[in-house]
């Protein structure tokens, strides 16, 4: 066991060099495969109309085929900043609401011995099973009855409701693995229940809140059907709807360039968001609280 034969040594020297080549290539191919559609959109958004339409496809445009016109056109023809603002407002509001309602509910489900806890959880789970497309007609009636059409609330409320089950389930499992000793220690130290929740539990919950918050935000940002149905006023539309409804100069022209630009602009906020919170998500803030 302790002696190493010459063949073994050769093998151990040999193997990493093969790995050194294959592993990066495999990673690069995988990344390329996943990112290809996005890269194509990015490229299209910077190409001139001629370069977009050219056959064969232009994969490596020359400098005179590159332009910022598509973005310019997007902002000239449509109030695109408005769309971004709408999407941002609706997504942020529903995320804050989902976390604000979901996290306390999850804490209660995780910590209190509630009667009928299983029924509540089953109910929460069942909500997630309905595809939104089945709900939107019914919701449209409700929206019209409550006179919420063309109101941000008509999006914020359903987005919150749809994302609550995920928030509750994820946060509940997080609270369950949070050591109860910490809360007991806080109570012995003299924290009142609200202060314990704010000063002790909340800081430890931040990574989980960030993770679920991002999922909720992305879901709300990308939602299409409700946004299409409940909002008809041009200046209140969200990015996905506006992007899909971009029209050309004539009914026969499909404006590939501005659509690509809209897609890129609609994606960038999400990418930034994930990058900002990435460290928070990865970081295990609870490490060191208890043994381990």
């Amino acid at each position: 066991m302790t002696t190493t034969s010459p063949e073994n040594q050769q093998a151990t020297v040999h193997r990493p060099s093969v790995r050194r080549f294959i592993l990066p290539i495999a990673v690069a191919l995988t990344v390329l495969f996943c990112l290809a559609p996005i890269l194509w959109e990015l490229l299209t958004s910077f190409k001139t109309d001629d370069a977009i339409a050219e056959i064969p496809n232009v994969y490596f445009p020359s400098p005179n085929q590159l332009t910022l016109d598509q973005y310019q056109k997007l902002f000239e023809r449509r109030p695109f900043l408005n769309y971004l603002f709408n999407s941002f407002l609706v997504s942020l509001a529903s995320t804050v609401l989902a976390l604000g309602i979901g996290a306390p509910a999850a804490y209660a489900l995780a910590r209190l011995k509630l009667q009928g806890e299983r029924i509540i959880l089953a109910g929460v789970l069942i909500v997630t099973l309905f595809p939104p497309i089945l709900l939107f007609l019914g919701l449209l009636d409700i929206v019209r009855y409550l006179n919420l059409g063309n109101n941000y609330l008509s999006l914020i409320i359903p987005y919150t409701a749809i994302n609550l089950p995920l928030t509750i389930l994820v946060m509940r499992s997080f609270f369950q693995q949070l050591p109860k000793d910490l809360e007991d220690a806080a109570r012995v130290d003299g924290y009142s229940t609200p202060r314990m929740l704010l000063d002790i539990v909340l800081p430890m919950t931040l990574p989980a809140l960030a993770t679920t918050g991002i999922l909720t935000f992305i879901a709300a940002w990308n939602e299409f059907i409700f946004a299409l149905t409940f909002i008809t006023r041009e200046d209140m539309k969200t990015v996905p709807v506006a992007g899909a409804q971009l029209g050309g100069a004539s009914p026969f022209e499909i404006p590939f360039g501005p659509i690509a630009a809209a897609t890129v602009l609609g994606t960038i906020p999400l990418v930034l968001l994930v990058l900002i919170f990435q460290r928070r998500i990865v970081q295990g803030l609870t490490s060191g609280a208890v043994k381990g």
Partner: protein
Amino acid sequence: MDKKLDLVALRKAYTPTVVPVKDISLSVGAGEFLTLLGPSGCGKSTILRLIAGLEQPSSGQVLLNGRDVSRLSPGDRNIAMVFQSYALYPHMTVYENIASGLKLRKTPSGEVQSRIHEVADFLGLHELMNRKPGQLSGGQRQRVAVARTLVRRPDVFLLDEPLSNLDALLREHVRAELKQLFGSQNTPVVYVTHDQTEAMTLSTRVAVLNNGYLQQLDTPERIYTEPANRFVAGFIGSPQMNFLQVKCEAGQAIVGNSRIPLPLGSNPKEIVLGIRPEHVHVAQSSNEPALDGQVFLVENLGMHNLVSVRIASGGEPITVRALLGMEHRLATNTPVRLAFPPDSIHWFDVGAGDRVEATTPSMVRNG
């Protein structure tokens, strides 16, 4: 005034059938180190949580310095607790962890600093003050958890298995540290463990619990030498005490082929004889009353051999384990004569398992 903790007829029932604590009364005075010892599920942790106020008793009282605190919240009781998992706040530095309890009680900041300084001196924590718990080793976390309780100067210290997360070597070291640390102060300590070594080494008194009832409350020495019943006798001491259920005749117990006199004044039909393996020895002479048997298992424990011996008897075979010195080179299947020194024999009632003592002659006369 001396600090004092009393539990009066304490009972905790979760449901009518789940009753972890049944009628516990005890008191811990100044300078006392009381250990609650018992197997898992005996209710010892629940008792500690009742004292801390983390659970509400179903009935009974917790008195702190004579004042009933049963209905007060944990923060209002002036108790401090070390948790099994240490439960340090992960997002706070060591300093903030130690200071949090004082700050919540609106202690003047000058006093907070001086008290923390004092405790840090005592436990050697100065270099760690600005670290987060995640950057500490197990032993260091344990010391921070102890510091957090010391700095509070509470009316009673509660410790919930504080050593069980440490590895064996460190545990012995910290155990000695704890003994010195809590021995040098006067506040009552209640310590929960399932480890009899910790209970025996640390405590001034041990409360052995089983099934929610107090089995015996006594000094570690008396718990060992005079166990109140069969449960305590079997739980304390390792290897476990030998129990032989034997028939009796005319004030004598019939063990195998020999007779051992029963304690004065008792005359049951059957009795349980208990003797610790460390008290059984090999008979020196042929006229010493002894039992003949045959070795069937020898376990080397380093200092001693743990020898299992089958005693010849009329009915079913009796097994006795004895801790014998290495000089008896006993192999399996060799015959051996084991002597039970009469002073080391414990007698227990067959039914209830209570200890059977020799009744004093005066009592016999009166009765």
